[in-house]
């Protein structure tokens, strides 16, 4: 009886410890990316998030509510601080509009303006315009396995599939069990590291594992980066169509 107990215990330990590595051998980079996209992707979602922007003169918090439908439509309304309250952004495909209540004007963000940072953060408007599905943009290859934040991870090297992708290559650390990207490095075509993302906290929302606290950093720039905290997230929520119209910016 004791022998059987030991065999079962050994088998369990073996399965728990070796399980992910068996998966690593069986799952290709593309399959991992697909699961990452599936985990986070949704037909629509509503999210309230706070950005903590660390600057040279201190930190400030910007809270926003975002409605997302599909891969190419999103609407963001800034809720705080009072200075930014009422500022709205609408993304439709590859176009981005911004409404500022102080000027009572809607402007299209394009050209060099896309390179400006969003509310002084380490994120640019260009970053917001990216296709959220990694498998549409990158070829993935598992290059190693590492432990990050006490989680076993695959380290994937992503190389752009097409020529018009903003970041030529990326390196991502994907949680083997939750299929969440826990760390990401974005590189320029010449190989220079441009931006990093480090996930600090992952939570389960509606059967999905969602990074709810992350740190974005433009590594070429001095500073402590920008924290991004998800306050609430609702998947597959009902979102009226009028939200994704330019008229909604002025409402």
């Amino acid at each position, binding site marked *: 009886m004791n022998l059987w107990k030991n065999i079962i215990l050994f088998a369990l330990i073996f399965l728990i410890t070796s399980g992910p590595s068996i998966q690593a051998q069986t799952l290709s980079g593309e399959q991992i990316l697909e699961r990452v996209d599936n985990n986070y992707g949704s037909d629509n979602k509503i999210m309230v998030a706070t950005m903590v922007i660390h600057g040279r003169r201190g930190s400030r918090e910007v809270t926003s509510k975002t409605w997302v439908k599909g891969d190419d439509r999103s609407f963001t309304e800034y809720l705080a601080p009072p200075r930014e309250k009422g500022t709205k952004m609408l993304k439709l495909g590859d176009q981005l509009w911004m409404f500022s209540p102080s000027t009572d004007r809607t402007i299209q963000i394009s050209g*060099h*303006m896309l*390179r400006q940072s969003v509310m002084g953060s380490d994120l640019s408007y260009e970053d917001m315009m990216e296709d959220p599905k990694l498998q549409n943009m990158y070829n993935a290859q598992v290059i190693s396995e590492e432990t990050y934040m006490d989680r076993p991870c695959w380290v994937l090297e992503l190389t752009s599939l097409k020529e*018009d992708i903003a*970041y030529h290559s990326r390196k991502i650390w994907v949680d083997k069990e939750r299929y969440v990207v826990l760390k990401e490095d974005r590189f320029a*075509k010449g190989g220079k590291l441009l931006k990093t993302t480090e996930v600090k906290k992952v939570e389960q929302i509606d059967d999905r594992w969602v990074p709810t606290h992350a740190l974005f950093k433009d590594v070429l*720039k001095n500073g402590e980066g920008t924290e991004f905290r998800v306050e609430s997230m609702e998947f597959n929520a009902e979102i009226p169509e009028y939200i994704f119209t330019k008229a909604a910016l002025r409402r």
Partner: protein
Amino acid sequence: MTLFKLAFKNLLGAGIRTWLNVVVLSLSFVVIIWMQGLYKGMNNQAVTSTIDVIYAGGQYWQESYDPYDPLTLQDAHGVLPDELKSLIKKEEATALLIIQGTAYPQGRMMNLLIKGIAPDQKIISIPSHFLDKETKDIPAVIGTRMSESTGLKKGDTVTLRWRDANGTFDARDATIVQVMRTTVQTIDQGQIWVPLERLRELSRMEGEATLVIVDKDIANPSKTEGWEFKSLDFLLQDIKQLVQTKTAGASIFYVILLLLAMLAIFNTQVLSIFRRRKEIGTLMAIGFTRAKVIWLFTIEGAMHAVLAALVAALYGIPFLTWFSKTGWSLPESVDSYGFAIGEKLFPVYSAGLVIGTTVLVLVVTTIVSFIPTRKIAKLKPTDALRGKSS
């Protein structure tokens, strides 16, 4: 002739009153010529240096290029047509490729224009030969203003980031090989100069350019599809308009100066007609017609301007000559006005300017001198002889 002699004698006879008027009027002369000279010098300096360093004989712009609309810049590049390639080959033109980028001096983020220029070009006076260096990093030249705002000095390295023709980010380090000193802000502030071929290769814009600058001696540039030739008249429009606006603003000052001088002359004329009624009566009694007397007084008034011109020449010529040689040291803040003047402004006085000003003052003085003399026409010789006004 008698009238002129008589007028001259009367004028000198008035003594201090005449000389006071003459000095005030001569000041107007000198100040007007001096200020006009300053504006002319400003225009000349700005035009000459801008032509030397960026416009040369004119520019061909790629059809999407609009320097006043930064949104067009990312599409403003194209493959050079054969006509322009042959001009460049004959060293009669040079190509510029301009892309938007970001620099990270000391970890700060700064949007800028990355301009590619052939290191061996001789069309514009930019020290591009410094870019002819085989280095691992991109060799780069910046202006003194850019150096000041970024804190970058010769030998420093800065990371540049840009998007290539397909929109993919690339970033490389650039080493500042030279900091150029230029009066023209349009080649300095917010930009960095790198070798053309290197930029073409890194931005995936092989054989492309944003604009082509042609040599000063190219008379009639040919028409090229997709590229529009911009003549110097067009390119220098802004500078000329700016100078015109400033000159128009300054003319208010001339008007005030002239008004003061004319007021003095008008007063003198009114006073002398009042005080010299007996003389007017006597002149009429000995056979002077009213018109002749009016002429005499008008000539007397106008002669103030002639004397003022002579006095102005006496101290004005040495002063203006000295000033045109030493120039006017400008405060540093002038540099931020966007006007390519430099540290010193050298006025330019042309013959047209001097003659024009002299004629203007003479005509205005004559008119102002004539107006009070109309009163003489109403004088009765008998009343005038008794010192009475009619």
